[in-house]
């Protein structure tokens, strides 16, 4: 029976994976055709003669029937060929490969910091404000997280730069030249997620801490740290994991802005550049990559959730 459940689950996830990827491929293909302006004209340059533009159009395959274009795009994606950048004529795959690690590294560091900090923060605040104690803390927590959430990440980034790079001079202001360069971008990218995740954890933890099993744990007179880490945290994982999928996605979105603030050589900045440069192959290559990562992560989190909390095996998603 159990094996059967997992088979059904795996098949459903596989179907979702395929459907989502197919939708993503259609979406990224359509981008190029919906964006206003003549791609061939832009690539050939304003000085180009009509003949040169026509030649460029042929070179880019834009004069082919749309289905032919789609098929060549689709088969290209399947074989890992995303075409060449209009701008640098470099294979898109190479351009993505050189930037992807930078985005993934701050996103991954960001999510780890987010999980650790917000679990600690949310639990601590929930613990300290149990039974209406320390109401000032409750208020301070509510306001400070609201401020962090409401402030755009570029303002937070600027504040971090002013404080830690320009005034104190302890951390680099921008770039990815050394390991310490990761600190500020990671902090900036994690700031919003930490605020929203710790609010969630605090809310969930307030409920968990009132559960009978936490009273049991208190009855064993173990330290508050142990109560929280060993007994409360596992019961918060399901909801935090579910949210962390969304947060990772928002981090990749946040990377677009954080990378601009910190001159970080990642995909986020590249996608903005490519849109403004009308470098369509690069734009859709990056959107495809980011979307693909989002899909895979999403499914991976579903699987982890199903292992952690087997009830989700049947129901699919936990509501956030």
């Amino acid at each position: 029976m159990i094996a059967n459940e997992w088979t059904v689950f795996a098949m459903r996830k596989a179907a979702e994976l395929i459907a989502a990827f197919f939708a993503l491929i259609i979406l990224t293909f359509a981008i190029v055709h919906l964006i206003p302006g003549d791609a061939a004209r832009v690539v050939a340059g304003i000085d180009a003669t009509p003949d040169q533009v026509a030649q460029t159009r042929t070179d880019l395959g834009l004069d082919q029937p749309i289905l032919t274009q789609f098929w060549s795009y689709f088969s290209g994606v399947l074989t890992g060929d995303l075409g060449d950048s209009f701008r640098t004529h470099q294979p898109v795959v190479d351009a993505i490969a050189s930037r992807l690690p930078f985005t993934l590294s701050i996103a991954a560091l960001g999510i780890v910091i987010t999980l650790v900090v917000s679990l600690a923060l949310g639990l601590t605040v929930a613990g300290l404000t149990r039974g209406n104690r320390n109401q000032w803390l409750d208020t301070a927590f509510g306001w400070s997280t609201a401020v962090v959430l409401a402030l755009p990440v570029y303002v937070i980034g600027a504040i971090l730069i002013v404080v830690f790079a320009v005034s104190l001079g302890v951390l680099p202001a921008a770039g990815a030249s050394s390991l310490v360069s990761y600190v500020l971008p990671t902090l900036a990218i994690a700031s919003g997620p930490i605020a929203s995740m710790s609010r969630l954890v605090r809310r969930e933890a307030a409920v968990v801490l009132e559960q009978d099993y936490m009273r049991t744990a208190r009855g064993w007179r173990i330290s508050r740290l142990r109560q929280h880490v060993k007994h409360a945290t596992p019961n918060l994982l399901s909801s935090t994991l579910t949210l962390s999928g969304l947060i990772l996605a928002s981090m990749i979105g946040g990377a677009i802005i954080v990378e601009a603030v910190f001159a970080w050589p990642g995909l986020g900045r590249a996608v903005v550049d490519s849109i403004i440069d009308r470098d369509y192959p690069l734009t859709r290559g990056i959107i495809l990559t980011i979307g693909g990562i989002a899909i895979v992560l999403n499914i991976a989190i579903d699987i982890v959730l199903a292992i952690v909390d087997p009830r989700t095996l049947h129901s699919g998603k936990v509501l956030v």
Partner: protein
Amino acid sequence: MVGLKRFAIVTCASVTTGALMISGCTTGGNAAGQGVDTIRGAWMEDPTTFDPALSETTDDYRAMRLAYDTVIRRDLDGDLIPGIAKSWEQSADQVTLTIDQGHVCGDGTPITPETVAHSLSYLADPETESLHTTGIFGYGDVKVSPDNAAGTVTIDLSEPHSEVLPGLAMPQAGIVCPAGLDDKEALAEGSEPGAFSGPYALTDADSGVRYTFELRDDYDDWPEYSEPNEGTPARILEFVVGADDAVANQLLTGEVDVAPVDSEELSRFGGEDSFDVVTAVTGEYYIMFNHNEGHPFADETARRAAAQVIDRTALRDVIDPEGDVIQTLGDENTKCAVDDESLMVDQDPEAAAKVLDGVSVRIVGANAIGQNGGGSIYIQERLANAGADVDLTNTDIGSWVAQVYDEPDTWDITLYATVNNLGTLSWGLSTVIGDWYSEGGRNVTFSENSTASEALAGALSAGSEDEMCDEYTQAQEAALGSTDFIPVSMVTQSIVSRGGFSVMTPGGREDYTTLRVG
């Protein structure tokens, strides 16, 4: 925002025949002083190619200058000085270059008249589809022939063109060695060191991250400027990509040694002795009108009225406080530029209001011109003040250029900017007078000023400098006389270097080969 500004500017350069660039150059070294052999700088974007003929963006030009020498260079004041060619002769339809012996390619091959001729033929060949062919050689057929015995290269033009020499001094006219011409793909990638004729060879290209150049051991052909360039060339040049928003901070924290900085941020370096600022000129700002029928500024009185309310000095203060206000599309370093205040329209808001009241005007603007698109906002405010019914669209440079060039029905007036690598009057003038863009020329304003247009053509085919300047003067006076455009100011770029590093701006232009340590 700021980020966009930089990205946008690059696109502009790639898409137009001219555009502005604001960011710049670089130098570096960590601690400054002795023992430093690396200069760290900042670029806006990845270079699109390492083939000079195909280069099209600001960062391309920066890279070309490092990797390829040109036959002619510019001195600090803009005069032409020897490069690979030690001397030259020019007539209306012929240029003869005498090649200096002893220059060598990256792979050790000597640079001969034949090498130069091959490279220039490739640049001139229509098959190459270089954006720069017509700017350098004009619109006729080009024949480049070497004479190894005499040590000369002769360029014959079927149509006279007077700007070949300044054209050959541009980085996009860099000489490509045989190894590069034999393998165009490797040339474009920059992966063939034998292709390089300049002081630096690309050693590492990490797309979107960093470009590293290394000084060639055998290179000793630095141009001789009128003032010596003090200091030592760096062994390594390292350019991070996309740092434009952050460079001011990075200069202050010592992460970058030399970089272009926005004029608004210059005050951050003002009080510090440990920073040097040099200002390079990159082009001209001017106001373009759409002269096409049915557009309000087809009428000369309307154009005059606009000039009567737009205070060029105030506009300059908004868009580029470091730039000089200009009376034509060039400054005192530009050959044949007129500097006649009387050709300018005096301020007269009341007279203007009589003409402009109730007129509906559509401005298209680039949000990269002036902080946050301030230039267009200023124009909007002035025209609206005169009673015009103004509609302003401020967009990124790509959209703006596309609209100006390809959707002429949708705009009446725009604030334009060029990247004038050529450093000549024709670069800007031909966008507002002469043959229409829609008919194969460069003029996007649909102006019909036959006097000015003929004089411009005459200047470009002049056989002597005097003749050229006569024609240019006539063209400028005719165009300014009917307010075909409004010159505003030079486009500048301020390059900040940390103590211990320096850079020069030959001819007012940025040039990385002048980066020095010490």
